């Protein structure tokens, strides 16, 4: 009975689309036009028409709402519109999962998951809004100058590093892996801008233990992926990336106000990763390549642990440049450059890259990829996970 209630292997990502990725403020067109462009590219990649879309899913309070998109695109029948709760990148995989669920449930047949983001045209995530007053829960943090995401999450990372004796080298290796992969990727904003260990060490502190290069970029652009049933995807233009498993959620009281999560030094993936592997029927040893959301390298470090790739006390040995880089590392991560070095598209660019790894078309291709994992969100709540298979 229970196997009836799963999305496992029933849906595939059939198309991916991305605009040019820009530095913050450099996009020549509006955020809405960027979003349209990404969607049009994704349907073209799939071999579908825009009018085949009958569902929309997004996350992180995307400003480009499905009704406006469906109206602008001339969609005849808007059958599904969905927003994943929560901020940051926690909903990237979750939006894909919601879209897959809608297809399995029969609500819609072709669902686009999209993210449009022009931080140059709207507010910046890395800056605090100059409010006159703050109340619960920000009243317990903001008056003390704990304002930005970097400041919010450095506190967690520092405690984890204290408990497990993690050295700065682990964070440096995560940043350098992303930058290394971006050097092969012409789409990457940091293409042609390699990062040496010396550059990393010499970069300014944003908030200890995060240097400048431990922090994601701020960008303009848009990305989209097209989902349809596994059966239909097989007859389309691209090799399908089948959704083997997805999960979303949060560990016990991770949103406790004023930094009171009981399991504090955590990326919030413990229960979510467990459910992911249970649905997939595979374990961490079978993962060929992973896209691990980098808001900050400290979150990647804890995500690697909580997805079972190493134990907390093994981070110094595991998180090395050799381990984390394609093609031959034990766990190549963020093979397009990710949020740090390709583009901060709130992690939807990690999902397009996970698809490329399944297709065999990444600019940093890992050989013979069967299992391609995406971890969306670390340290926010809720977070979400996705496994694609060839």
């Amino acid at each position, binding site marked *: 009975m229970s196997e009836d209630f799963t999305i496992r292997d029933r849906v595939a990502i059939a198309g991916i689309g991305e605009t040019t990725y820009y530095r913050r403020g450099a996009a020549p067109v509006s955020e809405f036009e960027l979003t349209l462009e990404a969607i049009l590219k994704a349907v073209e990649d799939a071999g579908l028409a825009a009018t085949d879309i009958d569902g929309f899913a997004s996350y992180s309070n995307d400003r480009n709402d499905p009704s406006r998109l469906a109206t602008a695109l001339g969609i005849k029948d808007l059958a599904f519109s969905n927003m994943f709760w929560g901020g940051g990148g926690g909903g990237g995989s979750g939006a894909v999962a919601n879209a897959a669920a809608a297809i399995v449930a029969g609500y819609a047949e072709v669902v686009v998951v999209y993210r449009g983001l022009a931080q140059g045209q709207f507010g910046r995530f*890395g*800056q*605090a809004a*100059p*409010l*006159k*007053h*703050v*109340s*619960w*829960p*920000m*009243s*317990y*943090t*903001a*008056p*003390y*100058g*704990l*304002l*930005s995401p*970097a*400041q919010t999450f*450095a*506190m*967690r990372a*520092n*405690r984890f590093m*204290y408990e497990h004796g993690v050295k700065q080298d682990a964070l440096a290796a995560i940043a350098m892996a992303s930058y290394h992969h971006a050097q092969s990727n012409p789409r990457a904003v940091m293409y042609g801008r390699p990062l040496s260990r010396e550059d990393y060490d010499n970069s*300014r*502190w*944003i*908030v*200890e*233990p995060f240097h400048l290069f431990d922090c994601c970029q701020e960008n303009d652009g848009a990305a989209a992926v097209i989902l349809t049933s596994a059966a239909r995807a097989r007859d389309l233009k691209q090799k399908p990336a089948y959704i083997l498993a997805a999960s979303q959620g949060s560990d016990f*009281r991770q949103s*406790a*106000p*004023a*930094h*009171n999560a009981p399991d*504090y*030094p955590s990326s919030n993936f413990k229960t979510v990763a467990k459910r992911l592997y249970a649905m997939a029927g595979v374990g961490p040893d079978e993962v060929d390549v992973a896209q691990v959301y980098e808001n900050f390298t400290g979150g990647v470090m804890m995500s690697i642990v909580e997805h079972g790739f190493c134990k907390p006390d093994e981070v110094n040995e595991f998180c090395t440049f050799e381990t984390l880089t394609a093609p031959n590392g034990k766990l190549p991560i963020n093979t397009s450059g990710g949020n740090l070095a390709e583009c901060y598209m709130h992690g939807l660019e990690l999902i397009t890259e996970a698809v490329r790894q399944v297709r065999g078309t990444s600019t940093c291709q890992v050989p013979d990829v069967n299992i391609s994992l995406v971890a969306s969100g670390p340290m926010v709540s809720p977070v979400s996970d996705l496994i694609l298979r060839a």
Partner: protein
Amino acid sequence: MTAASTTERYLPEGLAIPAASPDGLDTEYWAAVRRHELVVQRCNACRGFQFGPEWICHQCRSLDLAWEQVQTRGRIYSWERVWHPVHPALKNGCPYVVVLVELPQAGNVRMVGNLLGDPMQPIVIGSEVEAVFEDHVEDEVTLVQWRIVN
């Protein structure tokens, strides 16, 4: 015992001013710190502590919660030194230190504050700290800061 207090601000003026929640959830907390008293929510049913406050006890689901005065002592659970200003008021205010302090006498609930003194002082997790009530007279609010206990 009179708690330590100061009218000297650790951070420059201009950051958002804390206000009690409009729904009344933490009116008593902000009133208590004005009196230089540290209070934590405590459940009348199961006696569990809870912070930040919520309308229900997460341990036993009782809605009967009270505010209990606790000792103004704690220990550093985590910390960070901020170098990059993300608010106009902090342009000349960096670096500064934010600490996360746990209160062993109140179920190890945690509070965020600043660590008073030289921002470049070496900081050791586990160090004993005591609260210093920082009065912002014009704004009619008080912040809870922390200093190392010698």
